[in-house]
């Protein structure tokens, strides 16, 4: 599904990603862990097409297409979803208008007719239950005045609406209390199918207690320095990242 080969990227002339290789297949859940500043969020931003980052080398193939050649909006329509670490507040744009625009762009991309207002509201009602968001959501401005937990639940709600084939969850656990974490993780698990895949980016073990990864990668200084099964999470939690630094010879 996703094939990243020797990916290098920089921001403001500073190289952050220094040769990432990663392969994700349908049905898999990958976890990317690593200390602060290792490039985790940069990787997610580059994959989503953030204009602040420049790819200097390497390739990314997504379902057979050259992902890096696509603008951000097309990547989304093609089935890539980024759950933002810091969801953006957009005062004055209601959730319903925002999501209707997004859903209908996705439908257009697939050659489907836009949803009617009634069909859309029905879909929205069904999906918001997955993350236990309340009924007032539709008329609220996007993320404006949302609590930290609501913002993250709103990200998963949008994921449920857009049904991506690859979701990247960037630090979705940051700022969540244990109940919100459970709700968000349950939402993600409900959306899992044998046809889609996820990349979970996190610092901590606790999210991975709920969203169980098949493969765990450790990102350090812009490279994936270790890849193993889910047992790696427990090792990291016990030994910390210093152990990795020693392993790579620092």
């Amino acid at each position, binding site marked *: 599904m996703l094939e990243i080969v020797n990916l290098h990227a920089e921001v403001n002339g500073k190289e952050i990603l220094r040769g990432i290789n990663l392969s994700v297949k349908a049905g898999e859940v990958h976890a990317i862990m690593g200390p602060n500043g290792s490039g985790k969020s940069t990787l997610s931003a580059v994959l989503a097409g953030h204009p602040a980052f420049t790819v200097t080398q390497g390739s990314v193939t997504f379902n057979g297409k050259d992902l890096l050649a696509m603008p951000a909006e097309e990547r989304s329509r093609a089935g890539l979803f980024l759950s933002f670490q810091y969801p953006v507040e957009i005062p*004055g744009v209601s959730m319903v208008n*925002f999501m209707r*625009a997004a859903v209908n762009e996705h439908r257009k991309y697939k050659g489907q007719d836009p949803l009617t207002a009634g069909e859309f509201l029905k879909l929205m009602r069904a999906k918001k239950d997955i993350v236990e968001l309340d009924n007032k959501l539709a008329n609220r*401005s996007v993320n404006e005045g949302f609590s930290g937990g609501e913002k993250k639940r709103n990200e998963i709600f949008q994921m449920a609406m857009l049904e991506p084939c690859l979701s990247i969850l960037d630090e979705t656990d940051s700022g969540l209390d244990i109940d919100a974490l459970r709700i968000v993780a349950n939402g993600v698990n409900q959306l899992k199918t044998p046809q889609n895949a996820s990349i979970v980016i996190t610092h901590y073990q606790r999210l991975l207690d709920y969203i169980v990864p098949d493969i765990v990668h450790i990102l350090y200084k812009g490279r994936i320095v270790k890849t193993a099964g889910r047992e790696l999470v427990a090792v990291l939690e016990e030994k910390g990242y210093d152990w990795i630094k020693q392993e790579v010879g620092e």
Partner: protein
Amino acid sequence: MIHDGYIALFRENEALFQQNLPVWRKQMRNDAVVSLQNQNKATFADAYALDYGLNPQRLPFKGNPFSLFMCDIPGITTYNYLVLNDSFYAQPNLPALPAGVVICSLAQAFVQHADLLQPYISQLALQNPDVALNQLLAQDGMFLYVPDGVQLERPIQLVNMMYGTVDMMAVSHNVAIIGENAKAQVLVCDHAYGSEVSYLSNRLTQVFVGKNATYEHYKLESSSEKTTNVSTLQITQQEGSQVLSNLITLANGQTHNRVEVNLNGKGAHLSINGLGLGHNTERIENHTFINHNVDGATSNELFKYVLDYQAECDFYGLIKVLPDAQQTQAFQINRNLCLSKTARMFTRPQLEIYADDVKCNHGSTVGQLDENALFYMRARGIDPDEARMLLMFAFVHDVLDNVRIEPLKDRLQLLIERRLRGDKTHCNGCKICR
């Protein structure tokens, strides 16, 4: 044309200008001459540089003037009136007005209701050159009188229509007297026929809002690039009166709106809002002067502009709180979105406070669309143009929230959306656009 030219025009046609007027109004014409003679010639000439040609004879329109314009706001029912260039027309077969309500031509009101008008109009200060010119030359306009306790359920719509085949100028004067505990909504639409002819209009509207009365004033401009519109709105509010004013400029050439509000009674509240969408080389100026003259009045001001291309817009807001106006609450905000590097916004939010127990603030911002929000929307698959559109619409949304005539609000949403999308569009009311 410099003011000498207008004074000469007045002198040449004095009999015509002064016909059927009460003595005090005739005297105001002469006072206006003196005021104009005292104006700084250079600054006056800036606004009135071109000689557009005025028609003192006011030849009546041949045919039905309402065929020129048909308001297409779905679901709105109004008492519909027209000021075609410089003359007032009432739509034939209008439903009866509530008892005591008068809506007629101002020229006619000077004959039939001169005593009613005198205490209001004769006090008009003529120092301002736009007002002086208006009072020198205005021959007609709308007169609205709502007696005490009468509440008009249906809005009054006044369409100011510029219509000509050669460059021209038109001057009009509207007066509204809203009695105690009365209620009225007035929607003023400024339109211009065709895109080739240059127009200059100078319109003065005076509104007197009685004790505990409610008044809403909407001014909507959708004219042409060759239209210069100079408009002065004066509102005087008595105790406990509630006034809402919205000035929305969708499409225009050069527009200068001056609003002066005097809060003269305790508990009076003013909500004044404006929206300017500046495209091409349009110029939109909104200058507001809010005077808190007595204690315990409140005002809330919000003006927003979206500027594109080489548009040049200007906001000036002065809130003056006089020494006796304790417990005043006055808030003023101006926010502006510059979409191009060549658009220019000038803004001066000002407070002058001479009382010591007041709550006031003012502020202004000029900025661009939020890049983070744009990326967030694109990351959900939304087209960048559509994302910009949603953000622009969000920006102007709180101004629209202050429109309380629902069909007008719905229509404005559509018109603003079309305008923001860059469609060359008007409100489709004029024959030429239909």
